[in-house]
């Protein structure tokens, strides 16, 4: 303990508490809290009617539907494939595994603008993948499907990297017990392993979903940003900013921030739940 009681007075052995906490709070306030406060300060300059009118205008409503819908389905697809990838990386040996493991983080490391133009070109009608999908009647570039593809790309590492450590720490004895009691492999997976992975999968889902909601760079190129059709909410904000209508931009930003903060709260609860199952953390 840094605090010791000697003759009734608190003495800290380690120095620098006031300095470091002071600097932390100062920097946090300057960079994050005061600027974020500016959004709510600006929002109070709008009347309630103006605010409501802006956040419920048809283009905004269409953008919420697209942003939430595409983010939801992209995160859902990633839960399935992310689990398979994490499973394969933890449980099996195969050629090139270490490179594949490192590559999973590519969406974190690759700048979103690069991902954006790459996906847009790959999935365009003349692109390597777009060309193959066209005969099937699937158009990706400039459609809502494109938004979904970009958000799937962005979200993949969240699921893999949340599930992977939990999977690594699972006690093999539980599986052995189940199988020696007569459960087949599928029963062991669905009744023993999956329930223990559920908190991690939910956390990963929430993280991928939250990231997808705010995503901008990787989406705008492939989406084509057609009003009422393929405009995500950040694009609506950007559009208002380009017209110097800061009031409208702020109103929509407030809606997004409220959802983001609610999600952040959910994620904190989920992570606490996940860590209960992380036997490594308990040890």
């Amino acid at each position: 303990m840094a605090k010791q009681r000697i003759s009734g007075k608190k003495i800290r052995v380690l120095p620098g508490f006031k300095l470091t906490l002071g600097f932390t709070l100062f920097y946090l306030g300057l960079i994050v809290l005061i600027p974020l406060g500016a959004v709510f300060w600006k929002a109070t300059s709008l009347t309630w009617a103006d605010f409501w009118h802006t956040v419920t205008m048809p283009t905004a409503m269409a953008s919420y539907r697209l942003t939430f819908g595409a983010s939801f389905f992209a995160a859902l697809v990633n839960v399935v494939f992310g689990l398979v990838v994490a499973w394969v990386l933890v449980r099996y040996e195969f050629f090139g595994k270490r490179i594949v493991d490192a590559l999973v983080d590519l969406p974190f490391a690759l700048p979103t603008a690069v991902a954006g133009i790459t996906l847009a070109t790959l999935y365009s009608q003349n692109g390597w993948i777009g060309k193959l999908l066209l005969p099937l009647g699937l158009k990706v570039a400039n459609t809502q499907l494109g938004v979904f593809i970009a958000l799937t790309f962005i979200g993949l590492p969240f699921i893999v990297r949340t599930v992977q450590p939990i999977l690594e720490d699972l006690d093999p004895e539980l599986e052995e017990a189940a199988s020696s009691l007569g459960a087949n492999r599928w029963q062991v997976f669905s009744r023993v392993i999956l329930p223990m992975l559920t908190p991690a999968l939910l956390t990963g889902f929430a993280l991928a979903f939250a990231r997808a909601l705010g995503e901008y760079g990787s989406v705008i190129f492939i989406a084509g940003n057609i009003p009422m059709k393929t405009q995500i909410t950040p694009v609506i904000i950007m559009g208002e900013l380009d017209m110097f209508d800061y009031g409208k931009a702020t109103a929509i930003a407030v809606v997004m921030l409220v959802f983001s903060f609610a999600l952040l709260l959910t994620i904190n609860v989920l992570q606490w739940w996940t860590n209960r199952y992380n036997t490594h953390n308990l040890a």
Partner: protein
Amino acid sequence: MTPAATTFHTPHPVVHRRTTGEPPLVRRALIGVALVFLSLFLFLPLVFVFTQAFAKGIGFYFETLRDPNAWSAIKLTFTAAVIAVPLNCVFGVAAAWAIAKFDFRGKNILLTLIDLPFSVSPVIAGLIYVLVFGAQGWLGLYLNADHPKFPWLANWLNEENFKIIFAVPGIVLATIFVTFPFVARELIPLMQAQGRSEEEAARVLGASGWQTFWRVTLPNIKWGLIYGVILCNARAMGEFGAVAVVSGRIRGQTNTMPLHIEALYDDYNFAGAFAVASLLALLALVTLGLKTWVEHQNARLNRDAEIIAA
């Protein structure tokens, strides 16, 4: 948002028991599904960037990069990273020291607030600085040349032609915001796990505060710090949305590399856009390589520590 996903975790060796494995067919099928999915979504785009970058030949590639606007974008990207990364580094170390080595009330709230920038859309990250420093913004109002509340400051800033929004300072601020939590969130759990007994021993043996930090704490957190810096730098150089809002996209002046890529792409100069993109893709590959190497180093360190402990 990047929470748990990039947290420094050391892989644990798992002992495989054959009795609870899947049949070979299932195993191969699962590996197949994973590899097909990853090649389609990750490997193919990566290869594609480089093939497109050289689509018009190596001459065009270097011509694009030698262009003054491209060069200015590269310099600006580095400038922003060189300012943002060290600042967030100092913040990360300070925050981790306060949070990990001391007990105080409201620690959990502070931890949540530090993570806040991850849950804010990049576009909103840019917007907030426009609202503070823009012409009609919070502080902008005070500096407005027509009705200044601090005329001397406004005059001086006008004389110096100092601007924050649609200029370099805004870009630096937005970059600091989006990379704010990276170093702190690596160091806090690491320093919490390490406890404070080593530092206390150093102090009791007569080391000063700074000596304790440089000789005891810093060597202990070295790999976590490097890890945080690598991730912070990658994001700082690659940030697009937040910077797009505050930059004003003036070519040759306030365009960073990602913004220059967008400009070239919008001009239908696809080979040019991918040429600049290839530099950032290279940065991403170096980042992934370094990250894997640091994880490896740290795993080795932990193994050694376990052997010594046993």
